[in-house]
């Protein structure tokens, strides 16, 4: 994609599996994408497609019994040195410093993302003290400042309140303040507006955009909401069952979607111009049970353009279809012969 600039974060062939008694859940199964400095990457997909686990894998906070089994996550440090995050111990000093100072995380549910028995300020000050090496008083001043930046009125009062005393919108702003308190270069926002009402959603998205402009940070925006993607993202990654099925610039994805899944997703958005009283198209079938993944392309049972004998036999690899867009689908691979592409490709474009 933007070949003139090096990506801030490169994820290559990431596989995060959950090993359970009932079987192995391949939550992320070969995800590959890049996040560029100052840009917003939208990750879109249905629930259970591995978006959140991807985010947790990057921060190395995947819960037991989940484990990264393969792949690389490379973070380009501020000093230009690359750090391979999968090689670090999750609880090591180095990894913990990356969380917070390099990568911040905002969650879907701002209420449960705060401890119910600690004040909002306590949790911001804690992060600042941990990473910035300042004393309690300075950390508090910085925390008030951060709360002000995210548009919380009377921050010097709000800092001593508990999450349940704030409104939904303020809570999410406070959550963003926690994530931004140590000036990370990448903000991962995992469904940041899903739990909020529509007007508050728009305010939070505006805030994220404004903060991105001020700080020049990259945002990895995880959502199932294509409207949010259209509004926010520069580049889009479409995920299905732990795999990247299509990726490219936001215009290309919305105006010339290539993968049948992306097309189906876009068709299922209600539009103000669509004919009234016509049933909204949906994607037929439902997401397969995690223990019962289809062989071959994970989407073939629901795919309108399923090629028998090919799609159910081998997994398609992510291949470039234009300079900026890549798709993992046999429709776009000239040699559809047997066994091709079971190994996910190394680069894209």
């Amino acid at each position, binding site marked *: 994609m933007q070949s003139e600039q090096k990506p801030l974060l490169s994820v290559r062939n990431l596989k995060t599996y959950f090993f359970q008694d009932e079987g192995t859940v391949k939550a992320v199964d070969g995800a590959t994408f890049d996040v560029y400095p100052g840009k917003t990457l939208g990750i879109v997909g249905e629930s259970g497609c591995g978006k959140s686990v991807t985010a947790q894998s990057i921060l190395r906070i995947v819960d037991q019994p989940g484990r990264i089994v393969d792949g690389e996550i490379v973070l380009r440090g501020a000093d230009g040195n690359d750090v391979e995050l999968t090689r670090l111990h999750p*609880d090591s000093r180095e990894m913990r410093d990356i969380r917070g100072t390099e990568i911040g995380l905002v*969650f879907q549910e701002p209420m449960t993302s705060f401890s119910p028995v600690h004040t909002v300020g306590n949790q911001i000050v804690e992060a600042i003290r941990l990473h910035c090496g300042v004393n309690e008083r300075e950390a508090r001043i910085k925390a008030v400042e951060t709360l002000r930046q995210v548009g919380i009125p009377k921050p010097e009062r709000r800092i001593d309140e508990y999450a349940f005393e704030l409104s939904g919108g303020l809570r999410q702003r406070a959550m963003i303040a926690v*994530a931004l308190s140590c000036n990370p270069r990448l903000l991962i926002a995992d469904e940041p507006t899903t739990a909020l009402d529509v007007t508050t959603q728009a305010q939070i998205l505006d805030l994220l955009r404004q903060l991105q402009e001020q700080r020049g940070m990259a945002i990895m925006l995880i959502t199932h909401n294509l409207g949010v993607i259209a509004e926010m993202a520069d580049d889009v990654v479409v995920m299905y069952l732990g795999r990247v099925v299509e990726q490219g610039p936001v215009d290309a994805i919305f105006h010339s979607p290539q993968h049948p899944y992306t097309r189906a997703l876009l068709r299922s958005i209600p539009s103000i111009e669509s004919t009234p009283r016509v049933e909204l198209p949906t994607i037929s079938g439902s997401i397969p049970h995690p223990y019962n993944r289809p062989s071959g392309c994970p989407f073939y049972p629901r795919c309108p353009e399923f090629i028998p004998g090919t799609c159910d036999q081998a997994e398609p690899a992510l291949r470039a279809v234009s300079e900026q867009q890549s798709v993992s689908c046999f429709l776009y691979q000239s040699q559809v012969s047997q066994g091709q592409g079971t190994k996910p490709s190394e680069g894209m474009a």
Partner: protein
Amino acid sequence: MIAYIIRRLILAILTIWAITVLSFVIIQLPPGDYVTSYIASMSASGIGVTEAEAQALRIQYGLDQPIYVQYLKWMGMIAQGRFGMAIEWGRPVMDVIGDRLTLTIVISVAAIVFTWALALPIGIYSAVRRYSIGDYIATLIGFIGLAIPGFMLALIVMYVGFKYFNASIGGLFSAEMADAPWNWAKFVDLLKHLPVVAIVLGIGGTAQMIRIMRSNLLDELRKPYVMTARARGLSEARVIMKYPVRVALNPFISTLGYLFPYVVSGSIIVSMVLSLPTVGPLLLKALIAQDLFLAGTIVLMLGVMTVVGTFISDLLLMWIDPRIRFEKQ
């Protein structure tokens, strides 16, 4: 907040009043009264008691009056700080209970401290390292501890102590100290005897507490705030101790209230086996003899302690959990 405390206080007083009525009624429930059981034990040892003598005894203790009159008289005495005579002992109730109550509190507190000191760390470990070998071992030992009756454990400990260490485990004091007045040596003697007693009394509760702590903490570990704390770069140990453990402790504090009477009533048999000078065996004896004032006073005291304990744990919860504090404003 003040209104909340006052409401709690009023409720506490009402509860104590209900306890006095209930304990009085329950003690009166078995057929007959103290005199009946006195006559029974006298005739068992071959001494007859005439009808006139029995009637004189009943009048002396006020047992001939209707129940509500007896209750009101009893309440009147308590209001003046007198608890009546322990008929069987021929001494005032407070004399009989006196030291025993203090020792009961000491033993119970020791058992509770032992329980918590052992259960909380093991419970935390079991939850954090769920399904690890350590967790399975803790679970196994916990269930064994839960399954062994306290008196059985007491007997085993006494036997092992006597046979292999030539030490007498029973009692709280060495023989020469038992009747000595309180001084430093007696206190040290008590401290020496306390650990074994605390372990025997606390082991069942420990197993239970481990399970409670484990499941509480497992619930909390799944909550998003734990993940956001990790995402802030806190060390794993700090994340766990500061957030989910803190929240998981709430149920422990709310059970503080009835823990004490639970230990006292649960320890009656163990106390008899180990011949501990606590109120448990005394209560049992008083109930068998239908010694109204003694049994009533003990039940009343346990009830008051439960209520006071619950009141204190309410205050503690309000202090440590802001959700409760703000809800009541």
